């Protein structure tokens, strides 16, 4: 299937999901669905670097937080530009402010992409556990910076007042429905990009890096350039996933934004679904995300990480190639005489 057709199909499926959710008239569906979609984006973005290239990033929360705090900073700036900007800039930016969330997502994506590029450049020579530790260290450094940055609330955190509704042309919809829709579109875009990468020249290059970097270089693969592309694309999408979050949650603070659940889920979801295909993170995110949402309302949100941990250990031991790998092995076994 061609990429544009895939995009159109995925968008149509998304539209049907959105229409069904609207019909059910349940705000909870949108709240829970937003989180699941957010994890679809995070898991797919993580997989571009971790699954396709084999570079395990433990710093997903940092990229997500870049998106979150870009929104916080720009929203605060937009609320009172005269206080924070020089006069000549106020006149330039006033007609544009406050920025709509899609614009915040684009800016957050660019910033997180630049940080991803920088991280890739600084960790060029690192692989395996050393790369993972470096990404973790980057998250700690960024968290420290945010804690000490008063403009975005520092360790106190920051409040964002969510409007009650949003306008889509002539139609007015609830703000949570609007956020759900934005995340749905972003999920469709990131899945299309991941699938496009997988089937392109870039995907073959990434796979060769994952399997054997030395052999890839000997085959003419510019491994350095490709790794930088992977860290940039992956970081950018994680940042974009974080940008609407302050409007969803209403209050953000560093300990939660840089929290373990984002890093762990971003890794666990592709690992459980399967890392070699765009479908793996999607399956993993829907499965784990839904399970966590169900656990939150039936037991407690405290068991969320327990569920992830138990499933991750189980899959690593029993099916290290994830659900996709299990299905592929089963199909291959059937095909052999």
């Amino acid at each position, binding site marked *: 299937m061609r990429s544009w057709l895939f995009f159109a199909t995925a968008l149509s499926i998304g539209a049907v999901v959105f229409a069904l959710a609207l019909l059910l008239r349940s705000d909870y569906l949108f709240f829970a669905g937003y989180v699941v979609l957010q994890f679809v984006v995070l898991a797919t973005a993580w997989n571009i670097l971790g699954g396709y290239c084999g570079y395990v990033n433990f710093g997903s929360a940092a990229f997500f937080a870049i998106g979150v705090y870009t929104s916080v900073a720009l929203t605060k700036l937009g609320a009172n530009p005269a206080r924070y900007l020089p006069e000549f800039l106020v006149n330039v930016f006033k007609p544009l402010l406050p920025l709509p969330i899609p614009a915040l997502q684009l800016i957050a994506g660019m910033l997180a992409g630049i940080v991803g590029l920088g991280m890739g450049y600084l960790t060029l020579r690192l692989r395996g556990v050393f790369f993972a530790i470096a990404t973790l260290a980057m998250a700690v450094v960024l968290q420290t910076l945010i804690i000490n940055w008063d403009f975005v609330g520092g360790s106190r955190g920051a409040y964002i007042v969510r409007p009650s509704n949003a306008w889509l042309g002539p139609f007015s919809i609830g703000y949570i429905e609007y956020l759900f829709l934005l995340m749905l579109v972003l999920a469709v875009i990131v899945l299309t990009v991941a699938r496009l990468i997988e089937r392109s020249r870039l995907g073959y290059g990434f796979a060769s890096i994952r399997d054997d970097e030395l*052999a890839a270089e000997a*085959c003419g693969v510019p491994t350095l350039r490709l790794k930088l592309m992977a860290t940039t694309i992956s970081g950018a999408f994680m940042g974009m996933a974080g940008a609407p979050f302050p409007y969803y949650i209403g209050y953000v603070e560093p300990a939660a934004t840089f929290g373990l659940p984002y890093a762990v889920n971003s890794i666990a979801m592709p690992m459980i679904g399967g890392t070699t295909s765009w479908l793996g993170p999607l399956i993993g995110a829907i499965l784990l995300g839904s399970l966590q949402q169900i656990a939150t309302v039936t037991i407690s949100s405290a068991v969320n990480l327990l569920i992830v941990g138990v499933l991750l250990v189980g899959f690593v031991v029993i099916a290290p190639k994830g659900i996709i790998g299990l299905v592929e092995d089963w199909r291959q076994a059937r095909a052999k005489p």
Partner: protein
Amino acid sequence: MTGPLLEIEAVGKRFGGFVALEGIDLSVAQGERLGLIGPNGSGKSTLVNCICGTLNNDAGTVRFEGRSLNGLAANQRTHLGLARSFQLPRPFMSLSLADNLRIPLIYAVRRRSLLLHSPQELDARCLELLRMVGLERKARRLPRDLTQVEMRKLELVRAMAAEPKLLIADEVMAGLSHSEIEDIIALLLRLNEQGISIILIEHIMRAVMSFSQRIAVLVSGRKIADGKPAEVVNNPSVVSAYLGQ
């Protein structure tokens, strides 16, 4: 081009206090078949790594078609027309055999040629290459399904897929049967007839002697002989150092 295709001048490489290569001078002419021999640990693979950019030489210069390769990354050297097979096969384990060949075809050949743009053309070229080493029936299989011997063939054919001007075959015949060695030699000779220069690193002397137009001998990181096969084999220092007589 009138000068040699590959020119190595006073190349040296150290690992801490250990001198792996010292003052190596070597050249390979366009279309030449060079045998590179030496006991284990003599520096053959280190020299190959310095030529191909896997390692940076500490001293001296490596030139390819008159251009210095010092400081160029391995992938850039492959783009210029240098390709190597690894002594221990390093296939891309998650990719099928055809896709293993697709990597150099996409990243090395497509850069130099306007051909091979459609997936069908790439598929056809992959199959053609696999046919050369008798692996076309396993084109869709993964390397884990191959025997060690087939793995070596895949390693060689992947280097060939980059369509190099100079191919460095590092112990591609280890473990092969007599008839398979003959097949590989015939394959390398056919490539050479197309104008590709070949450096053959091998311990199987029969193969080196029948294939090479010239042989260079390394011992303890130094070149001790360089000449026609008959001359080198009768060289007293080679006999004492390499053949152990």
